[in-house]
């Protein structure tokens, strides 16, 4: 009788564990939306960073970001956007490479990027100097 009771309790515990929701993942460090390498800051300033959700004909929407930079001198820039879903997992786009851009002194340039999937809810924009 006692064995049956123990076995029953264990089965119930296993069942409940299986039904339990997955524990939430915690980032080890807060992720910044805009990450700029210090070397880049000598040559340019990020003057704008906008985001909006673009409505799509099927009813879904896509995250789009736009940023603007102003160059203090002729400069080369490399930039990349990494996209994340609601759970913080990275969503793949076409490739992982940095996009390069050239800036003339005093020039304002605007760059846009569109999320590769409607489930994207956040992003990280990284600016660096191409070597």
């Amino acid at each position: 009788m006692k064995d049956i009771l123990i076995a029953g309790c264990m089965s119930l515990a296993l069942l409940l564990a299986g039904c339990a929701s997955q524990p939430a993942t915690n980032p080890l460090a807060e992720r910044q939306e805009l990450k700029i390498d210090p070397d880049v800051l000598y040559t340019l300033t990020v003057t704008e960073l906008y985001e909006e959700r673009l409505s799509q004909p099927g009813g879904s929407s896509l995250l789009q970001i736009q940023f603007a930079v102003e160059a203090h001198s002729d400069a080369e820039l490399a930039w990349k956007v990494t996209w994340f879903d609601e759970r913080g997992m990275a969503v793949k786009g076409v490739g992982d490479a940095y996009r390069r851009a050239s800036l003339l002194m005093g020039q304002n340039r605007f760059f846009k990027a569109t999320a590769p999937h409607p489930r994207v809810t956040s992003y990280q924009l990284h600016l660096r100097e191409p070597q």
Partner: protein
Amino acid sequence: MLKRAIVLSASVLVLAGCATPTRYVDPAADNGPVAMTMDYRDFEKAASEAVDDMLASGAVSNPNGGRYIMVVSRINNDTMQRIDTDQLTKKIRVALLRSGKVVTTTAVGLNGAEDEMTMRARELRNSEEFDQSGVQKKGTLQAPDLSLSGKILQRNHKVGDEQQVEYYIQLSLTDLATGLAFWEGETPIIKRGSNDSVSW
């Protein structure tokens, strides 16, 4: 004679030791020099810009819900290089598939089906050797809604002591029901470098 062989072997070994070692290149962090020819970075840039623009324009979002079916038509290579245009179209196909908005058919193509097995598998119909419940039925293939076509152009110029090579990657996405291009894009890739560099 033996002395000469030893000296020669030693020289070969020394030279081999000085050679640049072969190494992997991570496409996500490649700071390597730029070639005058089109390399993987150029295809990635063109594909990224095309997919970004296609998604943002809404051209690949089916207003009736569900996914559009796309077929890859002809991408003309009008450059001096031997280019497999799949390097470009595959990236676009993969990204559009991942977006959940477009799926590409491999059952139709200008030079026959990309995957001939779709039709070959149907030849098993009425074969007594095969369990007919698993054989594909008639009328299950889906016709494409959209067609991706394009051209890669190259123009060379002499600019002072240097040469300038211009590549233009032009793409069109045609609605097969109406024949209208729902989306069009062009990515210029301009390179300037030594006259000694070759671009073919």
